[in-house]
C-alpha cells in the first residue's frame, strides 16, 4: 500500500501542473464511466419491447437480445442455426490447436483441409439429410469469418509467390508481378468487389456464373495478395545478402534456398505487418455490403431498419463494434503468440 502511494506521488502528483492534469483526467474518466454505466446497466431495458425502451433513458438491450440471432447468422434458416454454430466451433478448435509451432506438420495441414470440408458441407447442406442452404442465405459472423479466414489462407501463399516473382531475374515474371501488385494496390477494394459482382459475369460464358459469395471471395483474395506480397518483400529485403550467398554456395536450388533458408527468416520478421494486414482484412470484409452480401455489418444495419425497432442504432453499432473488437483482438494476440513461438 505504501509503495502504491509513493508510486502515485511520483507519477501522478509530481508538481502542480502534473497534479492538476491528473485530477482533471481522473475526474473526467470517472464521470464518463459513470454515465456510460448508468446508460448500459442501471437505466437500460433488457426485457420488453420497443415502447418500453423508448420510455427508458438507458440502452435498449432488448433490441440486441431480439436481433442477436439475425446479427450473428443473417437469413440462415432458424431451425438450422446449430449448423453454423458447430462450424464456428470446429474452426475455433482447429485454430486453437494450431497455436503451437511444434504441432505444425503435414498432418495438421490435412486436418485443416478436412475441417474446411466439414464446415463447407455443414453450412451448405444437401447431403446426409441436411437441408440445403444456398450461399446467398449465409450471413453474419460465419460469412465474415469465412471471407477473412479463407481470404488469408489463400492470399498468404499467393503473396509469397508474388513477392518472390517480383525479385525474379526473369524479366517477364518480374514485370507481371510488379504490374499485378501495383495495379491491384492502386484500386480500392470496394471497386474490385463491384467489378467481381457486376463485370465478371459479362466476361464469363453465358450460363456459367459462380455464385456471388465465391466472386467476392476471389476479389478479396486478389486484393489482399497484393498487400501480402509487399509485406513479404519487406521481409525478403531484410535478409542479408550473405544468407543467399551461403545457400547458393552450398549448392541448394532456388526453391530449396527460399524454402529452407530465406523464407523462414523473412516470414518471421514480417509477423507484425502480416497480423496488421490480417486485422485490416478482417474489417475490410464489411465492404461486401455494397454487393449485398449479408456479412456481420450488413445484418447489423438491416436490424436497425426493422420498423418495430427503429431508433436504436447506437446499441447496434456498439454491439457490432464489440464483436469486431473481440475478433481483431484475438488475431492480434495470435500474432504476439507466433512472435514468441518463432523467437
Amino acid at each position, binding site marked *: 500500500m505504501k509503495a502504491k502511494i509513493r508510486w502515485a506521488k511520483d507519477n501522478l502528483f509530481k508538481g502542480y501542473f502534473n497534479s492538476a492534469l491528473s485530477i482533471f483526467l481522473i475526474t473526467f474518466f470517472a464521470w464518463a464511466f459513470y454515465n456510460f454505466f448508468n446508460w448500459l446497466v442501471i437505466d437500460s431495458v433488457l426485457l420488453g419491447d420497443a415502447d418500453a425502451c423508448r420510455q427508458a433513458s438507458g440502452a435498449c438491450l432488448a433490441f440486441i437480445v431480439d436481433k442477436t440471432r439475425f446479427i450473428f447468422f443473417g437469413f440462415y434458416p432458424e431451425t438450422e442455426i446449430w449448423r453454423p454454430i458447430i462450424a464456428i466451433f470446429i474452426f475455433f478448435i482447429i485454430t486453437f490447436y494450431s497455436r503451437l509451432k511444434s504441432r505444425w506438420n503435414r498432418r495438421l495441414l490435412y486436418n485443416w483441409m478436412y475441417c474446411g470440408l466439414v464446415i463447407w458441407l455443414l453450412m451448405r447442406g444437401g447431403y446426409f439429410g441436411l437441408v440445403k442452404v444456398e450461399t446467398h442465405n449465409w450471413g453474419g459472423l460465419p460469412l465474415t469469418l469465412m471471407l477473412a479466414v479463407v481470404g488469408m489462407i489463400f492470399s498468404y501463399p499467393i503473396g509469397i509467390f508474388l513477392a518472390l516473382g517480383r525479385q525474379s531475374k526473369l524479366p517477364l515474371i518480374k514485370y507481371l508481378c510488379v504490374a499485378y501488385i501495383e495495379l491491384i494496390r492502386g484500386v480500392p477494394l470496394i471497386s474490385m468487389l463491384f467489378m467481381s459482382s457486376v463485370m465478371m459475369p459479362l466476361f464469363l460464358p453465358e450460363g456459367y456464373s459462380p455464385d456471388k459469395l465465391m466472386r467476392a471471395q476471389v476479389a478479396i483474395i486478389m486484393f489482399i495478395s497484393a498487400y501480402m506480397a509487399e509485406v513479404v518483400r519487406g521481409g525478403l529485403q531484410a535478409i542479408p545478402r*550473405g*544468407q543467399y550467398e*551461403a545457400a547458393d*554456395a*552450398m549448392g541448394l*536450388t532456388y526453391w*530449396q534456398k527460399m524454402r529452407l533458408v530465406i523464407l523462414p*527468416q523473412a516470414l518471421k520478421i514480417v509477423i507484425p505487418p502480416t497480423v496488421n494486414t490480417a486485422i485490416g482484412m478482417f474489417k475490410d470484409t464489411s465492404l461486401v455490403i455494397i454487393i449485398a452480401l449479408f456479412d456481420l455489418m450488413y445484418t447489423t444495419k438491416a436490424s436497425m431498419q426493422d420498423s418495430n425497432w427503429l431508433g436504436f442504432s447506437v446499441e447496434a453499432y456498439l454491439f457490432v463494434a464489440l464483436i469486431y473488437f473481440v475478433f481483431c483482438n484475438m488475431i492480434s494476440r495470435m500474432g504476439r503468440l507466433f512472435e514468441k513461438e518463432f523467437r
Partner: protein
Amino acid sequence: MEPIIKMNQVSKFFGEFQALNKIDLNVNLKEKIVICGPSGSGKSTLIRCLNRLEEHEEGTITIDGMELKDDVENLEKIRAEVGMVFQHFNLFPHLSILENLTLAPIWARKIKKHDAVDLAFHYLKRVQIADQAHKYPGQLSGGQQQRVAIARSLCMKPKIMLFDEPTSALDPEMVKEVLDVMVQLADEGMTMLCVTHEMGFAKKVADRVIFMDEGKIIEENNPDDFFDNPQHERSKLFLSQILY
C-alpha cells in the same frame, strides 16, 4: 596431371569498373594458394567467380572438368564440390548448429538424415565444437561460428575449399583457433584458395602466393620468396604497408 581449376583470360566488370582483367590461373589438386592484395584489387571477386557467386563476362573457368556457364544443373553440381567460407560466417541463424551442418547434405546431396547427422558430428568433433551442436549460431563466439562454417562446408565433402578473408571479422584472440583448423585441413591435403593477409598462415601452408592489384595477377611466387624478396614495386609497397 590436369589442373582442377583452370581460369583462362577471365574478365569481370561491375558496370564500367573492371574487377578482373584477363586472369590466367591454374590450380592443381591438393595445392594451397594464398591470394593477397590491396582492397579493391579483385581478390574476393576472383574466388567468388569460382563458384559463380559472381558471373564472369569473358574467358572460361573450368572446375574439375566442368565449365562454368549459365547451365543451372551443372552449376549446382559444381557448387556442391566447392566449399566456401565467408568473412561474416553466414551461418543460418534460424537453424541450430547441427541443422546448419545437415541442411545441404540432406537437400543437395540427398543423403539420409541420420547419416547427415553422423557426418555433421564427425566434422564438429574435428573443429572441436561437438558439444555446441544444439545451440544456435547467435549463442557462439565469432571464432566458434567460423569453425562451424568451415565444418558446414566440409560436410558437403568438397574437392576445393575457398576462404574469403575468414579471419578478418574476428576478434584478435579468436584468429588462431580458426587458422589452426585451416592448417589442419591443409595438412590433410585439401585443395585450398584463401584470400587472407595472415602472413604466418601463408608461410606455413601456401604452395604459392598470388599478389593481385587492379584486377590483375601482379606476382606469383612461393611464400618465402614473396615475403622476403618481392619482385614488383607494387608488391614491395603493399608488403611495406601491411607489415608494421
